[in-house]
């Protein structure tokens, strides 16, 4: 019997767990370690953040699903990996600290034969002074609870607009190195929609504050589309939406600090600015969760397994080449950790070899450039790919060839809601293929037949359909595996 341990139960970890359960049956032990007892369909937090959905619409408990699937669930956070074992045993192990109400703080060491690191991001609100809902002055939609607080604050602001007070709402990125611009883009247009539905749009100034150097970058360097016989860009297409909705955009911005009612930021030209606000939803930068690694004798080998950012180093090219020499081939294919054939990192947990957007620094040397997104569809594909590799290694032997899923070969759909209503809603629906542009295969970096952008009501229907489909899939209900990642 083999022990497979999965750290994290987000999209990639949970997908890996479900596929392993399907592929391995109950002859092998699959254990999921996650500090959270619930699964959250994070893309729909946007709708919780404007009050269109409740927490129960986007969250469900993991334990009953895992019980049904024969997966062991441990509510705990991993704190250290011991890939060569410890003084007691050569078997690799993970140190965990329980987080459930009953066992909070209890430490445990669990052994594994195969390990998947799917720990996701650490939300680094602390990277910017005054950022965040707990110790800062801004709201967030990163978790369902954050989104509930954001919705409450938004509706207070809407009430003030109704009372005749002009309000300024700022939505965007809380640091120059943030990722997930698509989420902020989506939220700003849902806020705009909410203000319109309340009949107070004329009382509100809405500002999108982003680290992207141009609109439509989305951390993937923007996209080129074919449109009615012309090649157009995601920049033009996105700018059109901002102009149509009257949303102001501030580009190439690094938020330096947030005081109550004022956000201070630096722009690429090195200038410093201040903007007074009544409502601010600013996303935090991400890092890997704090995980150490130790050798058998207790020697710290963390820097061998993890990049300084805390993300795990996998089969990618981390040589730090200049931007002009970056290529699609630098991106990982198997997600196997460097130096270990039984550890993988998937989703946000793997260290990207470099940005996808062109890296930029301000005139003062401050990095202001989006980090590469690796959430949603690619995360799920990575989870499934590693599950297939592990299942092969267990059933065919340790030499079984690893399955591959490079972000330079896979496509992704990004559906950014711009108003939630079945008859009057709208969304910017984009597909790109591949996620990481490959200029050796495509003049524009991507396949123009598959890379498209459309605005309209159908995009909202797609977003709503994906919400229901992925929650159905995540619950492991009959036929779940037929729904693609």
């Amino acid at each position, binding site marked *: 019997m083999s022990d497979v341990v999965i750290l994290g139960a987000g999209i990639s970890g949970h997908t890996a767990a479900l596929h392993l359960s399907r592929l391995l049956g109950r002859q092998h032990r699959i254990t999921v370690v996650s500090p959270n007892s619930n699964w959250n369909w994070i893309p729909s937090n946007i709708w919780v953040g404007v009050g269109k959905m409740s927490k129960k619409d986007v969250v469900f408990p993991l334990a009953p699903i895992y019980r049904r699937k024969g997966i062991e669930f441990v509510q705990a956070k991993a704190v250290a990996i011991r890939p060569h074992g410890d003084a007691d045993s050569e078997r690799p192990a993970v140190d965990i600290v329980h987080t459930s109400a009953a066992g909070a703080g209890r430490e445990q060491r669990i052994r594994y034969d195969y390990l998947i690191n799917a720990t996701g991001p650490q939300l680094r609100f602390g990277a910017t002074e005054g950022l965040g809902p707990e110790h800062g002055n801004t709201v967030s939609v990163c978790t369902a609870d954050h989104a509930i607080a954001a919705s409450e604050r938004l509706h207070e602001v809407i009430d003030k607009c109704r009372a005749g007070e*002009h309000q*300024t709402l700022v939505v965007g990125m809380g640091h120059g190195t943030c990722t997930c611009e698509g989420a902020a883009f989506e939220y700003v247009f849902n806020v705009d929609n909410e203000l319109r539905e309340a009949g107070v749009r004329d009382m509100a100034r809405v*500002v999108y504050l982003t680290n992207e150097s141009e*609109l439509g970058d989305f951390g993937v360097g923007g996209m080129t589309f074919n449109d009615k016989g012309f090649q157009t860009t995601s920049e*033009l297409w996105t*700018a*059109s939406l*901002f*102009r*149509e909705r009257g949303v*102001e*955009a*501030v*580009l190439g911005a690094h938020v330096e600090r947030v005081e109550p009612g004022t956000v201070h930021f630096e*722009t690429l*030209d090195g*200038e410093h*600015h*201040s*903007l*007074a606000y009544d409502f601010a939803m600013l996303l935090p930068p991400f890092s890997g969760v704090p995980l150490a690694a130790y050798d058998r004798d207790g020697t710290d080998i963390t820097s061998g397994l993890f990049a300084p950012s805390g993300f795990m180093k996998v089969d990618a090219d981390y040589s730090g080449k200049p931007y002009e020499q970056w290529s699609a081939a630098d991106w990982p294919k198997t997600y196997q950790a460097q130096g270990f054939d039984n550890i993988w990192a998937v989703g946000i947990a793997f260290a990207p070899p470099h940005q996808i957007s062109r890296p930029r620094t301000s005139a003062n040397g401050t990095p202001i450039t989006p980090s590469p997104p690796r959430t949603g569809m690619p995360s799920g*594909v990575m989870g*499934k*790919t590693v599950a297939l590799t592990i299942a092969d290694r267990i059933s065919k032997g340790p030499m079984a060839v690893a*399955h*591959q*899923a*490079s972000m330079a*070969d*896979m*496509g992704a*759909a990004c559906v950014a809601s711009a108003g939630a209503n079945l*008859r*009057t809603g*709208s969304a910017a*629906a984009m*597909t790109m*293929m*591949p996620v990481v542009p490959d200029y050796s295969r495509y003049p524009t970096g991507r396949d123009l037949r*598959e890379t*498209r952008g*459309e*605005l*309209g*009501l*159908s*995009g909202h*229907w*797609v977003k709503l*359909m994906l919400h229901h489909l992925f929650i159905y899939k995540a619950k492991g209900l009959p036929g779940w595996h037929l729904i*693609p*990642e």
Partner: protein
Amino acid sequence: MPDNPPIPVADLSRAPLPTEAMQRYRRNPVVQTWKFAVFNARIMRMVLKGKH
């Protein structure tokens, strides 16, 4: 309330605005049902083409 000093808001005055016909097109249930089907077919084709 004007910013003092002003913040560098991007100039979007040259971005194309949709015509009324385009806005109707984006909300037309028949057109959008077709678009919905095409978008889903494209996602499926992309999933099948992806080397994974």
